[in-house]
């Protein structure tokens, strides 16, 4: 329940003020804070061009019991611009240091890296995305995770309006005991702010906030 309260408090702080595309426009900065049943993360990146971003990534994998500090590079491999829709294919990779001093580990530090693809398609009413990632953290852990989303916007807002999306996310972690989770969520998007809140079938809260300017 305390997570629910924290999430609602956070929404109160950020609204009224949402697509967490990993690459922005030339010269754009993006701040992404993601929280779900597996991890808390922060990602700050700068896009020198419209097809690449570079930045810092921090992740705290709670059940896997390690943290990760990494340099992350995102590449827009292909974009399909249509009259009423857009689709993207990204490569997202990072390299850094994983650290754990919890339970099974005694101040274990290991080089770490991850890579994966992300793809999405959207128009102003519908949204579909898929992404995967393989993470290698030396002696600490290695794992694969993938997720997919579908979304629907109940109305088409004009530029500058508050945009609302209803979304459903499915996560698959093959090595976990509970390897499929389903998360209904809402996305609010206004100006430079994107906020998402939801709860999965295990009662774990998803709360994401993205600031882009």
């Amino acid at each position, binding site marked *: 329940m305390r997570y629910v309260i924290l999430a609602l408090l956070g929404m109160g702080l950020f609204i009224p003020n949402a697509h967490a595309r990993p690459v922005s426009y030339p010269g754009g900065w993006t701040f992404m804070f993601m929280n779900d049943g597996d991890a808390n993360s922060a990602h700050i990146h700068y896009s020198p061009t419209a097809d690449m971003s570079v930045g810092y990534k921090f992740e705290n994998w709670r059940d896997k019991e390690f943290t990760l500090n990494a340099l992350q590079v995102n590449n827009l491999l292909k974009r399909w611009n249509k009259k009423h829709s857009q689709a993207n294919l990204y490569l997202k990779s990072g390299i850094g240091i994983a650290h754990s001093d919890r339970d099974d580990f005694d101040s274990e530090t290991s080089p770490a890296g991850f890579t994966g693809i992300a793809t999405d398609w*959207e128009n102003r009413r519908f949204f579909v995305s898929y992404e995967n990632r393989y993470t290698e953290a030396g002696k600490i852990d290695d794992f694969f995770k993938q997720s997919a989303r579908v979304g629907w916007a109940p*109305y088409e807002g004009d*530029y500058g309006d508050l945009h609302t999306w209803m979304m459903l996310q499915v996560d698959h972690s093959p090595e976990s005991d509970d390897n499929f989770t389903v998360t209904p969520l809402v996305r609010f998007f206004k100006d430079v702010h994107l906020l998402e809140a939801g709860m999965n079938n295990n009662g774990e809260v998803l709360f994401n906030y993205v600031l882009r300017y």
Partner: protein
Amino acid sequence: MKKLILILTVLVLSFSVPAYAAPDDGLALKSGDAKVAVNGLVCDFCARALEKVFGKQEEVNAINVDLDTKIISVSFNEGQNLDDDTITNLITDSGYNVESIDRVE
């Protein structure tokens, strides 16, 4: 869980009514200004990207992005202009495609 669903439902209903619509800030275009049809404009981030990129051009007075028509209107400063190739490059470098460029007579 039921309380959370109820709260989220109220929130969605509260924010789903587009009553907070921003005023239409369509530009009064003059001769030589450009109306550009752009492919790939699906969200505010796209619109903001083009605003930022065109806003850095000293020749540009103002820009308006219409997500419904997918047309961006570019108003230039008096006596200044950008040619079609430059406009196309700015939009392509931003990650979008130009379908057509029309000039105001």
